[in-house]
């Protein structure tokens, strides 16, 4: 099954059609998606500022990371569910949008950055936890701000009919 067949298959679901035609489903889900994304990305960016060594310098990085983690997860779960429901309601609207797929790619890149950091620089966190972060930590923090800001930018631009194929 190609991706297009999958999207077309979902597009014909009665529940997908019902959501698409519901007057308030789209604005309600979009608002929930944005607010929870701002909460998730906002707390990730605050942690990244600590990684970059420009904010919350008096708090060990591991402490910032560990304490914000559950709240970031809540934001991520809510924004993901709202986002998946938006996609479920209008799969063919997003399928042909290059800007949408750039957003998805940026989410994956942010995830890869997170895992690479977790298994490299973060393994020796005890050595730099209270002092200035090493280059690896700054790179990970900078990339994270860049990727998540990109997700927000391309998510917003998905609303426009730019760069759209059939």
């Amino acid at each position: 099954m190609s991706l297009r067949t999958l999207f077309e298959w979902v597009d014909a679901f009665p529940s997908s059609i019902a959501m698409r035609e519901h007057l308030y489903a789209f604005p309600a889900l979009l608002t929930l998606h944005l607010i929870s994304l701002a909460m998730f990305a906002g707390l990730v960016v605050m942690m990244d500022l600590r990684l970059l060594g420009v904010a919350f310098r008096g708090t060990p990085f591991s402490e910032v990371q560990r304490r914000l983690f559950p709240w970031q997860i809540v934001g991520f779960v809510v924004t993901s569910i709202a986002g998946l429901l938006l996609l479920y309601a209008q799969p063919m609207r997003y399928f042909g949008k290059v800007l949408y797929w750039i957003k998805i790619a940026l989410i994956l890149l942010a995830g890869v950055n997170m895992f690479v950091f977790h298994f490299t620089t973060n393994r020796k966190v005890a050595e730099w936890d209270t002092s200035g972060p090493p280059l690896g930590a700054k790179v990970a923090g900078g990339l994270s701000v860049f990727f998540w800001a990109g997700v927000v930018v391309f998510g917003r631009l998905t609303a426009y009919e730019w760069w759209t194929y059939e």
Partner: protein
Amino acid sequence: MLLPLFEWLDTFRVGDWISTSSWAAPVVNVMHIVALVFVIGSLLIVDVRLLGRGMTHQPVATVARDARPWLIAALICMLLTGFPQLLSLPIRQYYSPFFWMKMRLLLVALIFTFTLRHKVTMADEARVGPVWGKVVGLVSIALWTLVAVEGRFIGLFS
């Protein structure tokens, strides 16, 4: 009462340029939303701490003092990217109930944040007690969430 002010705002050429350009309005709006992420982040990190969760390793005052310059910088970016959006379609904003609701809530949220919330975050925690911090944290989250929701509604329903 304020209609003449909005009609005057409507006479600025730069507003016409933003509303007729194919890219100016989206670019300004995108910057507004990136700034929103920083506003919400720098508020929430403190509000969560006020609720007695999050970075409990540190006193509330330390978290608040660390977050404050980022909050103020992000709010200035919000203003700088928000005003051009008002200037692009002032008459439409004037007749949008969501615009007025957002402005009222924003005013309340700003006053609350820089008076009561500031006072509670900077005060001695033993003196404030466990309840007031939680109330202030919850009110802060509720107020700013509503400001963001009304902002989103301006774009969706006008």
